[in-house]
């Protein structure tokens, strides 16, 4: 029963996204545009680009996730779906997790699929692309989970826009450090398993804690106390 509700929430969110292609497509286009800005702003020289590629791709991905995150709970809050979710017998953290996973499939996974293209644009050697994809796969879900807390905290505000990045960016720093570290290590031919393991550890921690924090924030937003 409880699981069926969670699965239904998950499917509903995916169906909604598939019918409004702008919702999930825009962050991806934004991601590619930011990548394009870097050679224009800094230098199109291949060696320099390769050196910075990991950092640039990760910063662009982080911004794209944060940009997409603002809408995670907003439409549900405005049309009253969120109240209905609060009334279901399923625990709210589980439903939050279902929503975040559905959202991650549209942003994080899509960004991960797009990342090799960005890597090629920035002249990353193909041996590093595997690490890039793995780091994004592990890291973007953590980003989604953490920024879901921010989205839940600001859901009651009419203009939450800048607040979500402002309050959650410091918490994304560990993911950014180890993800870009893994790409740098792969570039210089060093083992990357340790970095990926740490990213996995962050992911597990976020999976265990973030849904509870986001659920508490949603309760605050709905009940006002």
């Amino acid at each position, binding site marked *: 029963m409880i699981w069926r509700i969670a699965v239904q929430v998950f499917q509903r969110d995916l169906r909604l996204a598939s019918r409004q292609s702008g919702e999930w497509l825009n962050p991806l286009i934004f991601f590619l545009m930011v990548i394009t800005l870097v050679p224009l702003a800094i230098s199109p020289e291949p060696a320099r680009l390769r050196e910075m590629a990991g950092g640039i791709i990760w910063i662009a991905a982080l911004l794209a996730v944060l940009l997409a995150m603002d809408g995670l709970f907003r439409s549900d809050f405005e049309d009253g779906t969120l109240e209905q979710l609060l009334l279901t017998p399923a625990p709210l953290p589980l439903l939050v997790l279902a929503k975040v996973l559905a959202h991650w499939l549209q942003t994080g996974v899509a960004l991960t699929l797009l990342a090799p293209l960005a890597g090629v644009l920035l002249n990353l050697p193909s041996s590093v692309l595997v690490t890039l994809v793995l780091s994004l796969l592990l890291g973007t879900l953590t980003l989604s989970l953490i920024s879901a*807390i921010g989205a839940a*905290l*600001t859901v*009651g*505000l009419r203009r*939450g826009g800048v*607040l979500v990045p*402002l*309050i*959650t*960016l*410091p*918490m994304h*720093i*560990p993911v950014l*450090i*180890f993800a870009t*570290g893994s790409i740098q290590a792969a570039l210089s031919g060093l083992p990357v398993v340790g970095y990926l393991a740490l990213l996995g550890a*962050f992911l597990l*921690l976020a999976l265990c*804690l973030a849904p509870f*924090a986001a659920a*508490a*924030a949603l309760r*605050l*937003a709905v009940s*006002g*106390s």
Partner: protein
Amino acid sequence: MTNWLRRLWAIIESTVSPRYFYQLSGRWLPWFAWPAVILIAVGLVWGLAIAPADYQQGNSYRIIFIHVPSASLAMGGYLLLAICGAITLIWRVKTAEMVAKAAAPVGALFCLMALVTGSLWGKPTWGTYWVWDARLTSMLILLFLYFGVMALQSAFEDVAQGSKAAALLAVVGVVNLPIIKYSVEWWNTLHQGSTFRITERPSMPPEMYLPLLVMFLGLYALFATLILLRSRQEILQRERRSQWVRQLIEDERE
């Protein structure tokens, strides 16, 4: 048994009510304000004029008398925010919301002070105002965490809702703080060997240690004074429609 517990809870609840806290903090205030003035005056004269110069850094080391207590207060202040946040969320104590609202800008101020004094000290000692050292970076991130809490506190039209959201954010932030700190430390050792070690200072002689202790106590007292003052103001503002605040204002007028 439950009756007894309920009575105990009622007593606790009445002591943490904004009204009682206002009266209590009024009585406490001079006990923090005066020591703050005296200790800071003594500590500044002792530290800046009397204490001997460092054999390596000369006089520039004297900034530690402000820098080290500020840094400690910046971290303690965030912990205070998180504790107030937990009290707000678990026991729904209104006073804790108000103290957190009062404490956030004060903590951010001390964090900024630690950063500014540190970079002023860095110029003569390291030859640069800023390096991406692990400690400096995590202090900067702490400042950003303060800004996040402050932004959330003031973003809501309903003050109580903003305080509760900020309380939750402070609790989440304090869980993240050690992870961020150790990540940054590891990042730094990955990038470059630590050129400057602030942690391994040669053990300090008492002529330098004692004024530092005095400054520590003085700045802690100042921190408490500022928070009490701002909390009292916040209480008056948020309880302005209640009977006791009106009574207070009328008594004040006579």
